[in-house]
Structures are given as C-alpha cells and as structure tokens.
C-alpha cells in the first residue's frame, strides 16, 4: 500500500515528463505490435498451408500460361488424386480501390482439392450448375454488401472479353467460409468457373496459371513432384512443382525478406527508446536524491529503495506497452483489411513478446539508478542543507 502510494507519487512528481516519456514508449510499442503482427500473420498463414497438396506452375515463372490439358496428364500419375486447373482472376468491383483476389477454376476438382473451402450442399450444386456462377468469400461479400442471387459486374485486371473490355458479369450463387473458424484467406477470395472465362475471353482460352494437385498418400510427395516435372520436360510447356508450403514461403521471400527489415527497424526503435527511458529515469532519480536519502534514513532498506525504483519504471513502461499494444490490436485488423490480404487479429504471442520486452526494458532502465542509489548515504545528501 505504502509502495503504491510512493510509486504513484514518483510518477506524478513531474507529470509532463512522465506523460511525454509514456507517449514515446506507447508509440514504440504500437510499432512493435503492428509490425510483429504482420510477420506473425505471415507465419500463421504459412503454417496453415498443407505439405500434402502441390502447386504446379510454369517453369518459365509464375504468371506464365500452361495448357489446361496438363491436368489430364497429372491426374494419371501414381499418387495423384486431384488435379485442378486455376487461372488467376484478380480484379475489382466498381472502383479500383475495391480490389479482390481470386481465380477462375475447374469447380468440381477445385472444391475437392480445398476441403477448407466451406459451402453448403445447395450452394455447391448451384455453383456446378451455373456457368456464370461465382462463390464469394464471406469477408468479401460483407465488404461489398453482396447477397446470394446478386448479379455483379466484376472488372478483371487483365482478362479481356469478346466485346473488347474487361467487365465480367457473374452471379453470386454461393458464399463460402462464413464461420469464424473457417480459413480467413479463402474468405477474401472469389472463384468463378474457368469454362465461363474460356468461353468469353478474347484470346488464349484453354490455359491455366496453376494446377492444384491433391495426393492420395500412396507415393511420397517428393516422388510425385519429380514425376510431374518429368512428364512435361522438353514439352515446350515445362512445369515447376512445389509442395504448397514450399511454394508460398518461396513467393514471400521473393517479395523481400520482410522479417529482416522489420527486425532491423524495431531494433533501432527500441535502442532509441532505451536511451530515452534511461536518460529520463536518471534525470528523475538525480532530482530526487534527497527524497531517497530520507527514505533510507527512516529505515527503508537498500533493496526496498531499489524495488521502488524498479516498480516505478516498470509501471511507466508497462502501462505504455499495454496502451501501445492495445491501439495496435484495435487498428491491426483494420490496417490488414486495407491491404486486402486477410482478416487477421493480433495474436496473444505478440502481446506476450511486447510484455517481455517491457519487463526487460524496465530492468535495463532501472539498473543504473538502482546502482546510484545503493551507494547513496543518507548523510551525504542532507549534508549540504
């Protein structure tokens, strides 16, 4: 009780300094929350990827076309249960700001390849029966305010139709992944029938950017990968096959080692914060030498005074860390929605990391003042008066 009183008293002594220091720390912890949150989200996404599903792309690079007929060859290989062709179908609705990701796919095989794409039986049936039908992720449907039965004109970023423009009218016949437990990535995508796109596109029908391959488990994954790539070697349309996990980790690395950049930025932020907190703390203790001397004189042990200093620092940093992480977790899902990757929430791990850092910082910051005060003799500070 007396400690609480003393700690609060210490912090209130120079309100301006305490508030400014806390604001600086809050900003640092906000950055920590958002930036490690992004890395954490990427890691969560990669962890949810399957090792037993393959992605086959053109050897010439992702974005190059392969004939849809490759799927037949892949299907006949030992160990393969499904081969689903997919053509990238990115675009936007009404305004380029309303961008979405998605694919034109062979619906029946694609739905079997992705058990985590959750639909009702009625929706599945409607999707297979409606050529211009589309299934829209629940998060995307909420964002654009679409209901089942709506006819919506999608603007493709690159697919030109026979009329010479990029507008593709589709009918929303299904909304997938409506439950909170369903994959958030898929809940932000649109899937349309590749047959519909092929029939109305201006040129180059019968091509795919990717085959999603499901395995039956009878042949080791590495062997299936080798036999797919061997099948199309020297064909003019060679393939590169990857396990889903390897494929996405590789693509993320190509964007740049985001993790290393984030770590470097945060390291410089927290080094600067350590200096800021350290100098504020030394300053504050120097001004209060007399008071600490008095405390010692009235019987506070050295450990008691050290504990007081540490607690004061820990309260200041802890409250700031909490505030910074709180702001980060409130704004994080919103920020992530803006870049239209997925609906993500700041994980408990980020909170844990933030609180660990707060504790370590408190110890480092309090160390020097505690050392100064341990040597302090009450007589020394009062001698001058």
């Amino acid at each position: 009780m007396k400690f609480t009183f003393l700690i609060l008293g210490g912090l209130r002594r120079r309100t301006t300094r305490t508030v400014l220091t806390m604001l600086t720390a809050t900003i640092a912890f906000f950055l920590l929350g958002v930036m490690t949150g992004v890395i954490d989200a990427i890691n969560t996404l990669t962890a949810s990827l399957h090792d037993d599903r393959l992605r086959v792309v053109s050897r010439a690079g992702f974005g190059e076309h392969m004939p849809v007929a490759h799927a037949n060859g892949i299907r006949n290989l030992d160990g393969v249960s499904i081969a689903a062709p997919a053509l990238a179908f990115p675009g936007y609705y009404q305004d380029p700001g309303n961008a979405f990701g998605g694919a034109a796919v062979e619906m029946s095989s694609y739905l079997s390849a992705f058990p985590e794409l959750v639909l009702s039986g009625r929706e599945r049936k409607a999707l297979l029966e409606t050529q211009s039908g589309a299934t829209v992720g629940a998060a995307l449907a909420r964002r654009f305010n679409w209901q089942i039965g709506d006819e919506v004109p999608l603007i493709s970023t690159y697919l030109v139709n026979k009329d010479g423009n990029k507008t593709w009218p589709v009918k929303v016949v299904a909304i997938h992944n409506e439950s909170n437990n369903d994959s958030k990535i898929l809940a932000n995508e649109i899937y349309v029938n590749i047959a519909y796109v092929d029939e109305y596109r201006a040129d180059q029908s019968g091509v795919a950017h990717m085959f999603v391959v499901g395995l039956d488990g009878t042949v080791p994954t590495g062997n299936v990968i080798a036999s797919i790539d061997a099948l199309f070697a020297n064909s003019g349309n060679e393939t590169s096959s990857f396990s889903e996990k390897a494929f996405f980790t590789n693509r993320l690395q190509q964007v740049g080692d985001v993790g290393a950049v984030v770590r470097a930025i945060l390291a410089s932020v927290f080094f600067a914060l350590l200096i800021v907190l350290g100098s504020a703390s030394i300053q504050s203790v120097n001004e209060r030498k007399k008071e600490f001397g008095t405390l010692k004189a009235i019987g506070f042990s050295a450990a008691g005074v050290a504990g007081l200093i540490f607690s004061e620092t820990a309260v200041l940093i802890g409250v700031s860390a909490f505030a910074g992480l709180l702001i980060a977790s409130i704004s994080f899902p919103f920020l992530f929605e803006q870049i239209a990757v997925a609906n993500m929430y700041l994980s408990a791990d980020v909170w844990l990391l933030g609180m660990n850092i707060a504790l370590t910082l408190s110890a480092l910051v309090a160390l020097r003042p505690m050392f100064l005060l341990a040597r302090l003799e009450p007589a020394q500070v009062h001698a001058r008066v």
Partner: protein
Amino acid sequence: MSRTWQITLSNLQALPGRWGNSLATIFGMAAVSGVLAPALMMTSALEATMDATSRDGWVILVRQGAVVESMSSVSRASVELVRALPALKDADVHPQFVTNVVKPRRENSAILSSVLVRGISARDTATWGAQRIITGRNIIPGRHELLAGYLAAQAFERLTVGSTVLVNGVEWLIVGSFEAPGAASSELRGDLATLMDGAKATSYSSIRMNLPEPVQLADLNAAIQDDRRLKLDASPEEEFFELGTSAVLFEFVAYVVSTIMAVGATFASINVMYTSIDNRTLEIATLRALGFPAGTIAASILTESTLLAIVGGVLGLLISWSLFHGTTHTSGSMSSVVAPLGLSPDIAGTALVWSIAVGLVAGLPPAVRATRMSIAEGLRWEG
C-alpha cells in the same frame, strides 16, 4: 541577432556537460533518419532504374491486358499488320522476345528469382539502350550465346562470363557482360532469331517503336482498334514500366513508419528540452533580469533543440551510408530488377529537413515555457 548568437553559443558550449540528457534526442532522430534514408534509397533506386528503362517518345505494344512483357505474346502476323498500318509507314518497328530463367540469389541461394532473357535483333543493339560490353565479347547471331547484364551477374549465381545457362531446356554460353540504362542491366540478352529458335517460340513478346513525328499515341491506338485482327495495347514505355514496380506502396509504408517514429522522437525531444531549461532556470532568469528579451532566449532554445536533432539525423545518415551505399537491392517476382543503392544529396536533404522539423517542433513548448517563466521565482531557484 548577435545577442541571440552569444547566448546560443554559450549555451552550446555548456552542452558537453549534459550530453546524457541530449542523447535521447540524438538517438531518437538517428533511428528516424536511419529508417527513412535506406527506405528512400531503395525506392529512388527502383524509380531511377525504371525511369532509365523507358525512353521519351517510345511506345511498347503488348497483348491486350498484359501488364508485364513475359505475360504477352505478339504473333508474327500481328507484327506485319502493325508494320503495314498507314500511320506508321515511316516508323521503325522492333519486335522483341522475352523468356525467363530461374536463378538463385548470391546473397541467399535459397531465394530463387526469375531473370529476364531478352532477344533483340542485331540491328537494334545500336538503338536499344546503348549497350556497352564490360567484359568478354559480343554475341554472334546463330550461336547459342548470351550477354549478362552486369547487375544480374552481381546479384545472381552462375551468370559470369563462361557459365552456361539453361533456357527452355537448351544450353546457352555467357560470352560477355554488358551495361545498359535501367533494368536492362538486370537482364540477359541474346539474338532475337537465335533465342526464339532455341525456345521453339513462334510469337514475339512485344513490339517497341519510336513514334514518327506527327503520329500520336491516340492515333496508333485508334489504328489498332480499327483493325479487328489486332488485339494489342500500346502505351508509352514510361507508363508501362511504372506499372511493374511496387515502389509506390513501399514508399508509402516507409513514410508512414518514419512519421510515427518521428512523432515518438518529438515527444522524447520535448522532454530533453524541458529538462535542459529546468537545469538552466537560474541562468535564464538572470539573463532576463539583465534585460535580454524573451525572444532571444526562445531562439537559443529552438537552436539547441534543432542542432541536437540534426546531429541525430546525420548520425542516422552515416549509419545508412555505411550499411547500404554501393550495395544493390533486388526486387520483383515476375522478373527481377537489380537496383544499385546510393545515398543521394536529395535523400540526405530530406532526412535533414525531417530533423530540423522535429527539432523545431520539439523546441517550441519549452521555448514558450522559458519566456513565460517568472523572473523573480527563477532567481530564487536552487536546482
């Protein structure tokens, strides 16, 4: 004015005695400029590369909707149709072919990137980006030989002179390295006909042309629209290559993060300056009592705060320079662009402007407090 200087000077001379306090401003601002400067180095390197890649007055024709050349195909018949367009009777039409090879990066061989292989005709080498052979020799059309851009050879494994590269299943020998403006130095270059032959390709990827004087892009697009057989998009080179970079988004993120950091640095610096005037309460009150105007005192506080922030900004720049100046940055997943990084005066200037802004904003509240201080109370201050 001279009095302001005297006070500022005497103030700064006393500064070494209280470095400990000033470190918060210096390191805070060093962190800001140490993040801002490398980010700007990266985006300006990419932008400069893309700028140098495109030439004034040149247009590129690709298949409708293609955003990169490797996603485009232009049939031989289309090239003949374009050549025959009445509007283009004086134009020099240059078809090109591109394909990709996948190469591990030197800095981390686990990262595989696509490197563009561009086929251009022998007569184009003169007009096409002023190629300069650095090592080795030029290719001989008909042989399976390639030139490697010097930046590609720097950034990726096994692209040095004498290495062989597998392009669409056929082996090619690298006989020289070259330098050319912009992204060209991140590519491999071969002879158009030989390369297409080796890749068993029947269509080109794009057409480049310098529009003859009176012809406008709109005229060209109208002529293409009129011919139902032509499914091509024509755009100025600078527009087309701008599309392919993510520099804009990256720059935006860099500014947002730097701004948040700068706000933090400002709070920390306000603290520093409050402490600084607290320590000098007696000194400031004495000066005021002697008749120095409040504005002079305020100016000296703003100067101190700004100088500290500039020291921090320069420290951040020095760190950025020593870590990144002269290195390269590789980006892009469809085809890689290797951009040389340099700390330009522009970027250094931007970081310094940010430092000055932080210093001035942070100095303001303490400067106001110092001018409002009661002289009588200040003189009784015991520290």
